[in-house]
């Protein structure tokens, strides 16, 4: 599923998601413990993943590399809950929502 060097992230394969909507929903549906475990595994590999992906053009990633990028999108998604909010939802955001209708595909 992922490039061989990133086999350590295989247990977090359910964070490989196509769209922001799915990533945001998974964030809201996850416990802080789940997100923390994913973050702790993925964050230390973010720089090496970026370096690994640098060898490819973004629109032409082979399947394992594409999965790695999507997984790192999810890391970005959980970075606010983990690094800032200490909760899944944006504080003081109440019932407000904002749907991402168009996003650049990879």
């Amino acid at each position: 599923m992922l490039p061989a060097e990133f086999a350590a992230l295989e247990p977090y394969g359910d964070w490989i998601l196509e769209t922001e909507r799915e990533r945001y929903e998974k964030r809201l549906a996850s416990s802080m413990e789940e997100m923390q475990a994913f973050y702790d595994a993925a964050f230390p590999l973010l720089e090496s993943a970026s370096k690994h992906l640098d060898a490819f053009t973004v629109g032409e990633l082979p399947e394992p590399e594409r999965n790695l990028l999507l997984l790192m999108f999810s890391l970005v998604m959980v970075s606010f809950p983990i690094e800032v909010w200490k909760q899944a939802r944006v504080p003081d955001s109440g019932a407000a929502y904002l749907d991402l209708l168009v996003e650049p595909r990879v």
Partner: protein
Amino acid sequence: MPHFSKPAAGSWTEHYPELGTRPVDYTDSIDPACYAAEQTAIFKKTWLNVGRVEQLPKTGSYFTKELAVADTSLVLVRGKDKRIRAFHNLCRHRGNKLVWNDYPGEEVKGTCRQFTCKYHAWRYDLEGNLTFVQQEKEFFDLDKADFGLKSVRCEVWEGFIFVNLDPDAAPLSQYLGELGKGLEGYPFHEMTEVFTYKAEVGSNWKLFIDAFAEFYHAPVLHQKQATKEEAEKLLGYGFEALHYDIRSPHSMISSWGGMSPPKDPSMVKPIERVLRSGLFGPWDRPDIEGLDPLPPGVNPAGHRAWGVDSFHFFPNFMLLIWAPGWYLTYHYWPTAVDRHIFEANLYFVPAKTARERLAHELAAVTFKEYALQDANTLEATQTMLKSRAVTEFPLNDQEILLRHLHKVAGDYVKEHADAAG
């Protein structure tokens, strides 16, 4: 202690004496009669930005735009002559909505050779001419040349498509005036990687513009976004703009922005340090022409600490140009006195590497975290304004653009009423 200089008049607001300094009446945001007047006097009279030329890449590309505020729906299409035209989305036979898919109220886009009405199959070409009438002989003296789609004024400025429902309106470039002119030449056309956000918000359209037209709230409402020491420092400083410029009916605010890259990396979150990106966008400028030098209207104060310029083109279009070389637009489409559809688009130079794409992703995700906090205050404000317990509110010098917006909206309504006698 002010950190940035103000005009000789002593304040930005007094630099524009027509604005006054009195508290501002917010009845304009809750009164249904006022909203009805704004529909006629503003939204049916001014140039409205409905999109970008990149949304209509080739002959036959089209999209529809629901304009509840002006009681219509439009179809925008690129013709065989490559020109972009706008039409009321209305069949000339018996008024069926011409272009829609499953739900008539939903905006659609696509590519076609012609438009065919779902009702009785009348057909129109990309230039709006009626080309086919089902059982034409059954009609009485019907000349197809008289039944083309009803066109709407449509002009393009720097790749932004505008429409105007008033056939007598002055040309777009004249309407956008000096503020528009100062931006010409900015490489908008290079920034074609788009994130489009949408939400329905339970407030008057002007209240959300208010929220984005001042940064006075930023150190307070968004304080949890920064590290604790940083938040306290920001709160202590408060907010001061570098520069304001009002060219009625339009306006702009120029702000500092030390976060891209930050002076001290420990100020920002760990993921920002790795991805070199954050609220102010990617820290590394894209390698394109047109960012150095910038057009004269960008960073008008020529300040070294410049971070972002936010232009408000009346009535409902905001354009934010960020120092690291990307831009953001906001649109507020009223649907009722206390409701509107909010749309935000982030535009980047297309990422060539995954690293660049991740930097964009972080900027987009960060934008949403902030915007959710901004949006959430609005419904509560609308509800309390509606109580009419208080109708006038004091606005400070850093809220000058709000003062201007409510004045201009009121002036349009008044002028229109006066003209109608």
